[in-house]
C-alpha cells in the first residue's frame, strides 16, 4: 500500500511537471545575479511578470563574470534546449546571434520606440544586422574612481582633475602610510584600469583605433607605451598583497579608510552603500582623471533565444517589454548601482553618483564619447579581449617592460583574430 501511494505521488508530481511545461507561459531565465542585492533587483522583474500571469523558472549559475553561465548555456544550446532568456554581455550576444540562435524582437522595439531611447553605442550590442535580439537592462560605467572622503580630508587632498594631480594625491597617501590605490590583481581588474589609461592617454580617437578597430599601429605605438607606463606608475601605488584579491575586498579597503582610491566600475557603489556610506558625502565618485567627458561602459542585457512554441514567444516578448519599462529600469538600477539603459528616465530617485552617471552617460552619448569597455567584453570579441588581458596582466605583474608590452599587444591581437 505504501509503495502504491509513493507511486501515485511520483505520478502526480510528474503530471504537474508536464502540465507546467505544456502551459508554455513560463520564462526560463539563465543569469548570474546571485548576490543579495542583485537577486532582490531581479525579483522586481519576476513580480512584474507574475502580474501578467507569466511564471518564472530561475536558472542561476553562480560566478561573477558569467563565464560559468556561458559554459552551461553552450551545453544547453548544443543539446537543442535553450533557455528562454539569458543574461549576456557585449560580444557574446553578437556571437550567439551570428550562430542564428537568437529571436527577433523588432516588432516590440518598433512599437516601444527603442531606437530613440537607447543610446546608439548600446544598440550596437542589442541588435544584430539591424534586428533587435536583446533587451538592455543597465549601463555600468567602468571609468570611475571611488574615494574615501574622510581620508581625503585628513590628507588635505582635493578631488584630482588631471593625471598629475591624481599621482600627486596618491604620493601624499603613500607618504602618510596609507595604501594609495586599492586593487585586486585579477586579469579583469587590471584590464578595467587599463581601459581608463588608454582613454586618458589618447582620448576617444586612440581608444577607438586601438581597442575597437585593433589597428596594429595604435596597438604598438607610442601612446600605447605611455598607457603601459601609467599602469606601471599605478603598480607602484598598490600594496604588496594585491594579487588575486577580489574587487569587493579592495572596495572594503577604501570603505575602512585603509586605502585612498579604487578604480572600478559602478558595481562598487553597492559595497559602499551597503556599508552605510552616502554617495557624494562620505564617499566620492569621479571619473578617472583624463577620461572626463567620456564613458566606457558595459551593459547587462537579456538575450532572447529562438523558441518554436508561440506561447513561449509571447511570454518572451512580454518579458522583453517588462525589462524595458521605465519602472523596472529605475527599480533595478537603483539597487544595482548602474544607470538605466534608456536616456529618457527621471533621475530623481537615484543618489548623487547615480545622477552623475546618468548625466555623464547622456552627455557622452551626445558627444560621441560613449565606448564599450574592452575589459568587459564590449570593445572586441572574447578571444581578443582575453589575449589583451594576458598582456596587460603580465605587464602589471612585472613580466614585461612597457615597450615589450606594446609589441606583445600587436602579436597577441593578431593571433587571436
Amino acid at each position, binding site marked *: 500500500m505504501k509503495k502504491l501511494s509513493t507511486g501515485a505521488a511520483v505520478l502526480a508530481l510528474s503530471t504537474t511537471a508536464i502540465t507546467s511545461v505544456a502551459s508554455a507561459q513560463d520564462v526560463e531565465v539563465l543569469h548570474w545575479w546571485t548576490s543579495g542585492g542583485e537577486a532582490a533587483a531581479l525579483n522586481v522583474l519576476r513580480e512584474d511578470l507574475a502580474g501578467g500571469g507569466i511564471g518564472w523558472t530561475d536558472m542561476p549559475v553562480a560566478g561573477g563574470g558569467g563565464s560559468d553561465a556561458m559554459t552551461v548555456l*553552450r551545453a544547453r*544550446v548544443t543539446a537543442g534546449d535553450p533557455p528562454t532568456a539569458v543574461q549576456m554581455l557585449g560580444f557574446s550576444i553578437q*556571437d550567439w546571434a551570428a550562430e542564428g540562435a537568437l529571436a527577433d524582437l523588432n516588432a516590440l522595439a518598433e512599437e516601444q520606440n527603442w531606437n530613440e531611447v537607447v543610446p546608439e553605442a548600446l544598440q550596437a550590442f542589442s541588435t544584430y544586422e539591424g534586428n533587435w535580439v536583446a533587451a538592455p537592462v543597465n549601463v555600468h560605467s567602468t571609468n570611475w574612481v571611488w574615494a574615501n572622503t574622510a581620508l581625503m580630508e585628513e590628507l588635505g587632498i582635493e578631488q584630482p582633475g588631471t593625471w598629475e594631480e591624481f599621482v600627486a594625491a596618491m604620493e601624499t597617501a603613500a607618504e602618510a602610510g596609507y595604501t594609495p590605490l586599492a586593487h585586486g*590583481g585579477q586579469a579583469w581588474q587590471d584590464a578595467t584600469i587599463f581601459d581608463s589609461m588608454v582613454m586618458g592617454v589618447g582620448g576617444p580617437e586612440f581608444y577607438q583605433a586601438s581597442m575597437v578597430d585593433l589597428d596594429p599601429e595604435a596597438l604598438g605605438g607610442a601612446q600605447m607605451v605611455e598607457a603601459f607606463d601609467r599602469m606601471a606608475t599605478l603598480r607602484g601605488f598598490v600594496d604588496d598583497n594585491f*594579487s588575486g584579491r577580489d574587487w569587493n575586498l579592495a572596495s572594503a579597503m577604501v570603505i575602512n579608510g585603509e586605502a585612498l582610491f579604487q578604480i572600478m566600475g559602478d558595481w562598487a557603489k553597492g559595497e559602499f552603500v551597503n556599508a552605510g556610506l552616502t554617495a557624494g558625502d562620505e564617499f566620492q565618485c569621479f571619473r578617472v582623471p583624463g577620461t572626463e567627458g567620456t564613458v566606457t561602459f558595459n551593459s547587462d542585457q537579456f538575450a532572447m533565444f529562438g523558441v518554436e512554441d508561440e506561447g513561449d514567444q509571447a511570454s518572451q516578448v512580454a518579458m522583453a517589454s517588462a525589462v524595458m519599462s521605465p519602472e523596472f529600469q529605475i527599480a533595478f538600477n537603483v539597487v544595482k548601482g548602474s544607470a538605466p539603459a534608456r536616456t529618457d528616465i527621471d533621475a530623481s530617485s537615484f543618489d548623487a553618483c547615480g545622477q552623475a552617471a546618468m548625466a555623464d552617460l547622456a552627455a557622452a552619448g551626445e558627444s560621441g564619447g560613449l565606448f564599450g569597455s574592452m575589459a568587459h567584453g564590449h570593445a572586441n570579441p572574447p*578571444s581578443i579581449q582575453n589575449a589583451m588581458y594576458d598582456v596587460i*596582466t603580465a605587464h602589471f605583474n612585472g*613580466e614585461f617592460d612597457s615597450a615589450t608590452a606594446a609589441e606583445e599587444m600587436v*602579436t*597577441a591581437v593578431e593571433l587571436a583574430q
Partner: protein
Amino acid sequence: MAATDPMLDSGADFRTRLQNWLPKIVLAPSFAVMVIFVYGFIAFTIYLSFTGSRMLPSFDLVGWQNYERLFRVRQWDTAIINLGIFAGLYIVISTIIGLMLAIFLDQKIRGEGFLRPIFLYPMALSFIVTGTAWKWFLDPAIGLEVTMQRWGWTSFEFDWIKDSDMAIYTIVIAAVWQSSGFVMAMFLAGLRGIDNEILKAAQMDGASNFQMYRRIILPQLRPAFLSAFVILSHLAIKSYDLVVAMTDGGPGTSTWLPALFMYEYTFTRNQMGIGAASAVIMLMTIAAIMVPYLYAELREQK
C-alpha cells in the same frame, strides 16, 4: 561445434555457447562506452584541432593553422616552461621523499601501522582541497608569514605565492606534499617484495647497510621507480585543479600549465581550435612516456 554425443541435446549446446558468449555480452556495453567516450572523443578532438572552431565546433578544415598559432602564443611557452619546472621538480622531489619515507618505515619500527596512513592520507584529498588549504597557508596576509611575524620573528618573509617568478614553486610544494605519501606506499610495497635470502647472504658477506641499499635493494626497486615515474608524470601533465585553486594561473599569467591553457582557450576564449591543438600536444606528450613503458612492461611478461 558438432554435437555427436547423444547426451548433448540442443539445450546443453545452447548453454555452452552462452557460457562462451556471456563474458563478451557482459563486457560489450562498457567496451562500447569506452570506445565512444575515450577513443571516439580523442579522435573528435584531433579532428577539431584541424578545424576553424571558435565558440562551437565547426567542421571546416584549416590545416595546420591552429598548431602554428599555438606555438606562437606566448602563454603556451609559459605553460610549457612551467610544466618543465613543475614536472621535473615534482617527480624528482616526490620520488626522493617517498623513497626516504619508505626506507625509514621499513626499519621494523614500532607504530608503522599508525604512521603509514598518516603519510598516505594526503593522497585521499582532492587537489582542490589541497590547493585551497595551501593558498591560505602561503598567503602573506593570513598565513605563515603573518603568523611568524606575530609570534615575534618580524623579519620573516615568505611571499612566493604573490611573486610571479616564484609562484610556480609553491605549486610544486603543495603537489609534493600531496603525492609523496603515495609514492612511499609504492616503494614500501617494493621493499617488502625483496627476497630476504639475498639480503641475508649479503649480510653474511659483510655488506654494510648503505652498500646493501645501493647495490641490492635500489636496483631491485626498478619496477617501483618506473611505476612512480609514470604515475607522477601523467599527474604532472594533466594537473589543472591545483593551479586553479592555488593561484588561478596568477600572478599575471605566471603559473599557467598546459591543462589550464587548454581549458581557457577551449571554453572561455572561444578559440576551440587552438584549445584542441593543445590537448593533442598534451596527449602526445603522455603517449611519448606511456608507450615505451607499456611496450617494455608487456614484453617482459612474455
